[in-house]
């Protein structure tokens, strides 16, 4: 269960202000967040992930008020519970597919990179049909392939919450549906909570809940 | 395992053998080596040094040392010597064709270099109208003037003392004995020369210092004791004889009987006066010179 209560947030030296009175998302739900650009949809995802901290209000996930945690605790929570998928994939160009998938294990001391991790990563890649691209670099992949790598990275640690910010924004229709199907399949298999920011109304039909952000901020 | 150790040892030994060669071979014998260029110096050195040094004199007995051309390994004997004693007066043309260590060389006749006798005989050459003439050279049988022989022997003695200062007393003693012998030769020869009033014809140009030292008029031809001169040579000889009447002709070696007979026909007596450049068949330098003086004295 994710709850945002009386959230107030603004960026320094900016006119942007975000106010969320009350927003809750049930566990295991597939939630789409729509709304015009600049309304704070991505900011909300970052608040949920604990990357940004509200000026006031609470972000409660699994009964933990994460905005009150220490930096390290919040980071560990993020590592353990949250998988992020970005619109522009955010792969590291100098790492091959396998290394990109394994990146969380290389940048967090709490995660130990073992042989089993490699095995899981390869299986995940196989499942997402990029198993034969493990040695390739992002520059050599199609957009769809790149997004699948990003999804593998996000799902490697079996997160309970998946935050996807415009995951299909740069993809063609075939790949869009495919990516959404992958995310839905994961959520259904593992009971994870999916929160997807999207502009694509064609994809909304599969979601349990659609939040129009215009009504919130 | 044993074979491997032996192989490694063999390789090690072989590699050690291929190492540095000294530019100058070290003298493995305990005695210093003294190299000389002719027999008189050989004799003087042995008389003075006795057994204290090893004397190196590689010239074969049948070759005139003044014209000897050494092989490389023979030159090396000189290069590796601790002392090299030259005669001086351009003796041994081979010296200017080889490389010898300069500081080991002494010129035994340096003290009399102002008295070297320039050669009058022979033809020099030069190059171009203003070219320097080839050096005619000097007469080099300096030891035949026994006063000069003493000077040369003394130079040998001084060089030996410089080489082995600890043996100075021995060298002085031995030199003293040699000097005495040479002085006796000089004295006897001086006495005999007083009785020689006529010129003497010599078979070769080798008696210049002898002639000057004992005030004897010696006129030389260029005859070999083994070769009978031809008619033209005899004609020249007769002309020479007419201009310089004499009954004595000195030879380095006994001429062939036919030649001697021809001379006797002209009432010329043959006197063998061996310059002693190289090792005599019998006796030593002193014996040889005594015989020479005796032969001359008998006339």
């Amino acid at each position: 269960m994710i709850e945002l209560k009386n959230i107030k947030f603004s960026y320094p030296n900016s006119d942007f202000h975000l106010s969320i009175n009350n927003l809750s998302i049930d566990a295991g739900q597939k939630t789409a967040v729509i709304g015009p650009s600049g309304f704070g949809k991505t900011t909300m995802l970052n608040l949920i992930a604990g990357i940004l901290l509200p000026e006031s209000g609470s972000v409660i996930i699994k009964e933990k008020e994460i905005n009150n945690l220490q930096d390290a605790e919040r980071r560990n929570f993020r590592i353990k519970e949250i998988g992020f998928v970005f619109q522009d994939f955010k792969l590291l160009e100098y790492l091959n597919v396998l290394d990109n998938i394994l990146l969380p294990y290389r940048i967090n001391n709490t995660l130990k990179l073992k042989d089993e991790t490699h095995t899981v990563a390869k299986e995940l890649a196989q499942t997402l049909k990029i198993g034969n691209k493990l040695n390739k670099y992002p520059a050599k992949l199609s957009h769809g392939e790149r997004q699948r790598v990003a999804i593998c990275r996000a799902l490697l640690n079996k997160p309970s919450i998946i935050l996807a910010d415009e995951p299909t924004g740069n993809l063609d229709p075939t790949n869009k549906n495919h990516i959404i199907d992958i995310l839905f399949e994961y959520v259904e298999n593992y009971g994870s909570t999916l929160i997807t920011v999207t502009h694509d109304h064609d994809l909304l039909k599969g979601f349990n809940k659609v939040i129009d952000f215009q009504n919130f901020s | 395992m044993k074979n491997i150790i032996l192989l490694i040892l063999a390789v090690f030994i072989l590699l050690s053998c291929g190492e540095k060669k000294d530019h100058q071979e070290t003298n493995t014998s305990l005695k210093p080596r003294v190299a000389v260029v002719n027999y008189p110096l050989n004799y003087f050195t042995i008389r003075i040094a006795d057994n204290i040094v090893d004397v190196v004199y590689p010239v074969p007995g049948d070759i005139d040392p003044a014209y000897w051309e050494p092989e490389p390994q023979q030159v090396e004997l000189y290069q590796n010597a601790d002392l090299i004693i030259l005669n001086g007066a351009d003796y041994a043309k081979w010296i200017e064709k080889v490389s010898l260590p300069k500081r080991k060389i002494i010129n035994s006749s340096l003290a009399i270099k102002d008295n070297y006798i320039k050669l009058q005989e022979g033809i020099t050459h030069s190059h171009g109208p203003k070219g320097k003439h080839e050096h005619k050279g000097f007469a080099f049988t300096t030891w035949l003037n026994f006063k000069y022989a003493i000077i040369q022997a003394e130079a040998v003695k001084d060089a030996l003392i410089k080489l082995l200062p600890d043996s100075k007393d021995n060298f002085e003693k031995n030199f003293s004995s040699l000097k005495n012998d040479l002085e006796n030769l000089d004295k006897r020869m001086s006495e005999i020369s007083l009785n020689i009033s006529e010129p003497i014809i010599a078979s070769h140009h080798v008696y210049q210092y002898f002639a000057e030292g004992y005030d004897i008029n010696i006129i030389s031809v260029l005859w070999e004791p083994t070769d009978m001169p031809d008619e033209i040579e005899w004609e020249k000889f007769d002309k020479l004889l007419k201009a310089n009447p004499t009954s004595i002709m000195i030879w380095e070696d006994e001429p062939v009987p036919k030649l001697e007979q021809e001379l006797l026909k002209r009432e010329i007596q043959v006197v063998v006066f061996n310059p002693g450049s190289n090792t005599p068949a019998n006796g030593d330098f002193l014996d040889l010179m005594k015989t020479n003086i005796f032969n001359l004295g008998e006339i």
Partner: protein
Amino acid sequence: MKQSFYLAYKYLTFNKFRTLVLIASIGIIIFLPNGLQKLITESEQQMMSRANSTPLIVGAKGSSTDLVINSLYFQQEKIENIKSNVADKLDDTGLGYSIPILSAFNARGFPIVGTTLEYFTFRKLNLQNGRNITYIGECVVGYKVAQDLNLSPGDSLISSPENYFDFAGVYPLKMNVVGILNPSDTPDDKAIFTDLKTNWIIVGLGHGHQDVTKTTDQSIILNKDSSNVTANAKLFIYNEINQKTLESFHFHGDIRNYPLTSVIFVPKDQKSNTILRGRFEAAELPNQIVVPVKVVGNLLQSIFRIKEIFNTVFVLVGFATILILGLIVTLSIRLRKDEIFTMFTIGSSRAKVTEIISFELLIIIICSAAVALVLYYLTGFFIEEFINYYIIG
């Protein structure tokens, strides 16, 4: 830490060109002052060692630096000649012994040094291969000469017609290589040693030809009388000394007047050294006597002054480099903002990102140091060239 190193390594190897440029430039910056220091220090050591091992040099009056450079390093500076009897007169003093030198010619770019056998004992030069010089016309070559020209005993070398002195003529001579010296790490490695008389033959003071006093070929005779035969220019002068021609070789004029470029004098002891120098100062002896250590020391002083200037420049350059490096790092982090944000997003701490970037820097610095070390090592091979071109050139 292992993972941070891995990511740093991956980043650097992916951006190969950028990484190599950074490593090369930092490596060169680190190397430059150290390399120059090494060049100068080792040059100084080599030159002073050579000078230290040579007690005294006697030569014609004039530039003492040129005299020393010609005598020690065989650079054929234009110096006046002296007569060979200078060596004899020095020996006659009884204060030590002389080693005459005539260094005026070269063969295939290497100097020909005419001297006596004492030179080899004095310089402790040993034979690697072959034998001593025995006859005129033979030569023993230094290790590098043999290597560069691919020579071994039995080969030959022809002296070059160039002449850096005022000799009226130079007669190229085919010299026989009879020995190769062991390496000595001195200018002797790059010299061709002959007997002094061989050099005089190259000058034309000695030569070999057919016996003109006995020849029947009148076309080579310019003039003839009862005591002398004058040959004309048609007479063929042998340009090689071998078993056939050796006997014919002879010298013209007085050997005491033959030229030398200098004489190395080895005094018996310090007292003899002082006495001899005193005699020159008192003008009892003509020519000049120099103490190589002093001359080389003076020569190196000017080099040291330049070194100080360079050191100051390098400090400034180093400081500028650190500033530029700092700027590069800052700009790099700014450019990689997205990448860093991604890492934060997926769970990295600031410390971890700092660790990764630090490892990148560390790898670059270590590789730069390695480059600097290699360059520093290679500098050792150029000490001679440095001495030749920048100190005595």
